């Protein structure tokens, strides 16, 4: 698993690996939103947690199709599948690599970009916490979706449509936690639920993804 992880991380950082892509997209959304909705501080700070969450989710969504597609195209997926690593482990490694290259940078960048949207101090803290808890779930769900659509024509579009509804609970609880945090309310409930979703995903989705891979590889 460590080998796959290292290889994926290296590939992501190298040319064309799309390491910066998610982050750049996140930045783009956050810079553009004020031009769209107008510069009023109250409005911006009101919608900031939600927009940042949606932007993070989109950034994760856009980088999903790289999880398996590149390996599928150049034929390394069958080779990986026959390696002495169970497919569940492969799926987990892939999800982890995706999180490290996409989710983690987003978590780190979110508070900085929050400044642009007038996010309040506690808002930043809770945004960071909720993203840190929620983005791994995004990567896991995405890996499952990617496994379902490996090698399909129009895979990218299909992938988005499949993953989108699965993302909704994460988004709801994550954004709710960030919003409550920004308003100074209690954040315990949504964060707990978010953590629960994350753990559930980690426990179940690698198996689902492995099952999907087994079918797509046939």
């Amino acid at each position, binding site marked *: 698993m460590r080998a796959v992880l290292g*290889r994926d991380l290296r590939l992501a950082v190298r040319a064309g690996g799309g390491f910066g892509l998610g982050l750049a997209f996140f930045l783009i959304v956050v810079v553009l939103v004020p031009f769209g909705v107008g510069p009023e501080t109250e409005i911006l700070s009101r919608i900031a947690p939600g927009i940042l969450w949606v932007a993070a989710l989109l950034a994760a969504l856009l980088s999903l199709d790289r999880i398996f597609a590149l390996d599928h195209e*150049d*034929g390394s997926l*069958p080779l990986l599948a026959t390696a002495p690593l169970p497919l569940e482990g492969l799926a987990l490694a892939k999800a982890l690599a995706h999180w490290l290259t996409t989710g983690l940078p987003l978590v780190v960048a979110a508070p900085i970009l929050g400044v642009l949207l007038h996010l309040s101090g506690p808002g930043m803290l809770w945004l960071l916490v909720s993203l840190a808890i929620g983005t791994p779930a995004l990567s896991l769900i995405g890996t499952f979706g990617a496994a379902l659509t490996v090698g399909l024509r129009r895979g990218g579009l299909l992938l988005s449509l499949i993953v989108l509804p699965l993302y909704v609970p994460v988004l709801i609880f994550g954004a709710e936690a960030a919003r409550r945090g920004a308003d100074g309310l209690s954040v315990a409930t949504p964060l707990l639920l978010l953590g629960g979703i994350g753990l559930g995903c980690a426990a179940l989705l690698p198996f689902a993804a492995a099952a999907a891979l087994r079918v797509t590889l046939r």
Partner: protein
Amino acid sequence: MLEGVSFRVAPGRGLVLRGPNGIGKTTLLRAIAGLQPPLSGRVEGAGERAGYASHADGIKPALTVAETLGFWADLYRAELPEAVYDWFDLADLRDRPAGTLSAGQGRRLGLARLAVIGREVLLLDEPTVSLDAASVRRFAAFIRDRHLAQGGIAVLATHIDLGLELPEIDLTPHRAAPEARGGSDEAFL
């Protein structure tokens, strides 16, 4: 597509597939490589041991020659023997982005990849396209003196004469009759 083709290739031997355009050489090689299931029939013993070179070289224009080879070596956890650059006359082109190579130079790079991945069974689909006469000779020498001499297997599809003394199969007589057809459609016929 094809019907009644059957062959075994022993280690250290090669085989040349011939036949007019569209007869099914590429299809056959892909089936051997496990990239597409044959409509009927079996392929034995290739799979994990095979390296496939298609019409397209799969070269990323942005990577340099050295990076490309290094990548494939990495991917197959093989070492990158320095001598490859000589075998395929790529020494001067090492640090050139692959996108700036001429057609023949690019093809040489694509072939060098095969020497790097260290697979026993090489499936080569028109490997010498775009190569000049000298490069064809160099490639033939590689197949004969390095790959086959070390017990490798090579199955080549080609339209031209490679100067390799290998048994040939002409696929023309094996063109499938229109009715002959396997696959899952069969259940509905």
